[in-house]
């Protein structure tokens, strides 16, 4: 009833092409942003902000990046962690080596470096397809793991190979309280998400999807596979790189290559699949699900005051998590995003389905 679009007429193609063509959607999204920017920083506990929301935001950004590659361009990648690592270490080097380097700029440069490497590791995709490509991308993963441990220059010759940053600030705004960190990430993520959305609904986005759905036909109507695929790799690793830089700078503050291990890559792939391939919104759903679920499961015993042996608890966590993943793929292989849209379909008629 509330969610009816009839009576809303588009008088221009421009109006028809906006992100949320339906008024109710716009209302909700605005309300939601207001909540995120104004209410949450005030209300949420420090634990909530530092241990859940910040990681959630950062990994959503990474998931968006990965989704562009896997969901929109149909190239499976298991090497996302690598590109996060490149983003993080590149940003770190710009930060320490160049005096007075603005924080934002070093983050972006992190993204740029990861873009370059992303394109490099994207080249095989012109020849290798599907699962073969997926496994091949692991080469990137293990190579970067190694490179950042071995090549001292990247870690500014720190004896242990672990690096750290602190005193984050933009134009005098010192980002140190949890709320600051949260807001900083939130802002950045919103901007990136908007850009990502614009790309996927622009013609570059259509080229990616064309490659994904039917590459021969795409070539015949004049899309260059090289350009389409590599641009997807580039854009994807750019966002992933920025996310990596944020993960290091804002969330961890001090990190080692292990922070971007292969488990991270799998975790992100989970987010994209569970959230929904080919959906920006879905990336957020996926991230929320994958981050919060284990923590919730961990905490359950304490909330209900059941004294459970730590080992047992985390075994159970693993089992439930794994089982839920499978359950999800079974009930809704197209992810939370699809659930979301079907829900909206239903709501159009609700409460009078007939």
């Amino acid at each position: 009833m509330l969610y009816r679009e009839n009576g809303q007429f588009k008088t221009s193609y421009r109006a028809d092409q906006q992100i949320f063509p339906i008024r109710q959607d716009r209302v909700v999204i605005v309300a939601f942003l207001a909540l995120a920017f104004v209410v949450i920083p005030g209300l949420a506990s420090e634990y909530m902000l530092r241990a859940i929301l910040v990681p959630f935001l950062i990994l959503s950004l990474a998931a968006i990046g990965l989704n562009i590659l896997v969901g929109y361009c149909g190239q499976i990648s298991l090497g996302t962690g690598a590109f996060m690592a490149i983003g993080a270490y590149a940003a770190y080097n710009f930060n320490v080596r160049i005096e007075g380097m603005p924080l934002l700029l070093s983050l972006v440069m992190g993204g740029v470096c990861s873009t370059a490497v992303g394109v490099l590791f994207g080249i095989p995709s012109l020849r290798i397809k599907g699962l073969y490509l997926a496994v091949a991308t692991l080469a990137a993963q293990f190579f970067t793991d190694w490179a950042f441990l071995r090549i001292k220059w990247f870690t500014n010759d720190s004896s242990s190979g672990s690096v750290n940053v602190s005193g984050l600030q933009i134009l005098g705004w010192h980002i140190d309280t949890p709320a600051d960190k949260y807001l900083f990430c939130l802002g950045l993520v919103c901007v990136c998400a908007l850009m990502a959305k614009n790309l996927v609904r622009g013609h570059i986005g259509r080229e990616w999807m064309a490659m994904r759905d039917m590459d021969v036909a795409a070539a015949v109507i004049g899309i260059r596979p090289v350009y389409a695929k590599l641009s997807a790799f580039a854009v994807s690793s750019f966002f992933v790189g920025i996310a990596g830089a944020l993960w290091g700078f804002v969330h961890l503050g001090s990190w080692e290559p292990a922070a971007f291990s292969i488990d991270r890559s799998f975790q992100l792939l989970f987010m994209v699949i569970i959230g929904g391939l080919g959906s920006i919104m879905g990336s957020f759903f996926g991230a929320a699900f994958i981050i919060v679920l284990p923590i919730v499961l961990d905490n359950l015993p304490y909330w209900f005051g059941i004294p459970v042996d730590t080992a047992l608890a985390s075994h159970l966590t693993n089992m439930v998590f794994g089982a839920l993943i499978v359950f999800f793929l079974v009930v809704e292989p197209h992810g939370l995003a699809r659930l979301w849209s079907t829900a909206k379909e239903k709501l159009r008629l609700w409460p009078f389905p007939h």
Partner: protein
Amino acid sequence: MLKFKPLASAALLVASGLAALATAPAAFAQAKEQFFPVLVYRTGAYAPNGVPFANGYVDYLKLVNAKGGINGVKISFEECETGYATDKGVECYERLKGKGATVFQPLSTGITFALTEKAPIDKIPLITAGYGRSESADGGVFKWNFPLAGTYWVAADVLVQNIGQKEGGLDKLKGKKIALVYHDSPYGKEPIPLLTERSKQLGFELQLLPVTAPGVEQKSTWLQVRQNKPDYVLLWGWGVMNSTALKEAQATGYPREKMYGVWWSGAEPDVKDVGEGAKGYNALAMQHGAGRSKVHTEVLKLVHEKGQGTGPAEEVGTVLYTRGLMSAMLGVEGVKRAQERYGKGKVMTGEQVRWGLENLALDQAKLDALGFAGVMRPISTSCADHMGANWARVHTWSGKAWQFSSDWIEADAQILKPMVKAAADKYAAEKKLTRRTPEDCQS
């Protein structure tokens, strides 16, 4: 908001989860007890080593309570599983911090690095007994880090000295080949600077052989060992890497007597299933070795016999178990020392505990009273020195048990001090920190 209604179960679970989490920590802030967070890894790749440590740690806390708490203040504690993963560790830190934690023992070099950035802001001291960043021994820069009873640089130096003794004098090391087989991570790389320093000074040749974590595949590493035949092999592994290394050594016929492990490579899980194959293998005993002393019997009597034991009773007295006991004891003693200044029988804050740890004075008498006689040497910290002691012993695996094979060895301050200072200053420069002033030390 109607739109959210039809979203499926999982989405709802997440939402409710978020809501619950928002409120969760607050519900746990209670003040009459001294809360000890316990970061453990009882699962995953490093569980075999993590479990006994965790059991020892918890058993000691239970023991303290059984003996009436810290001057009457009962200890409450909560475990959090890190699985040795940094981001999980950070999550645990935030969670337990919210429940009133006043001292953390990260139990992982990676997590230590991450928390070193957070602790000063939250005013919570970190005890990293026998691990963490070696330069953090310099309390002038690392106000909140306490690598009590030894860092990796101490370990490396003691090993070099012990090898020297075997050879009959450090000068005999000239021209010798020493290979470092290390876990390819910040943990494994910690000793490298000191060893390079020593090799320059003593003129032995240092070979670095990294092993990719977790270290299940080391054939090529040991082929290289066989190829360039080093006189000694230092083993800087953790978890499965240790036992695998010993097995490969056996398979490539490298004499185990020539192998020296760090104190994280010298416990029962590392040699248990190699058995006879590891006979003659040497490793550092941080301060304590294996075997039971007064404190263990107390634990057995007051905790295990009451059916409160965290792990199996036969585990009591194993190397990592005892290290758990010792680490917990150091934390508790820190609180006790703080109470001497800020009021006996009170619950200490993070800052007060920090003072306690910085002014720790565990003389022999105190150790005897605690039942740690023969387990460890006295420890006394100061503003300048957050380590408190730089002694260690070496023990050797007989095929059945660990037996001490060296006397106490003290790491060479002449080498360590300048290195620690230099590294600490570099850190300070990077972070634009200034050294603490004497006044600050008094506070």
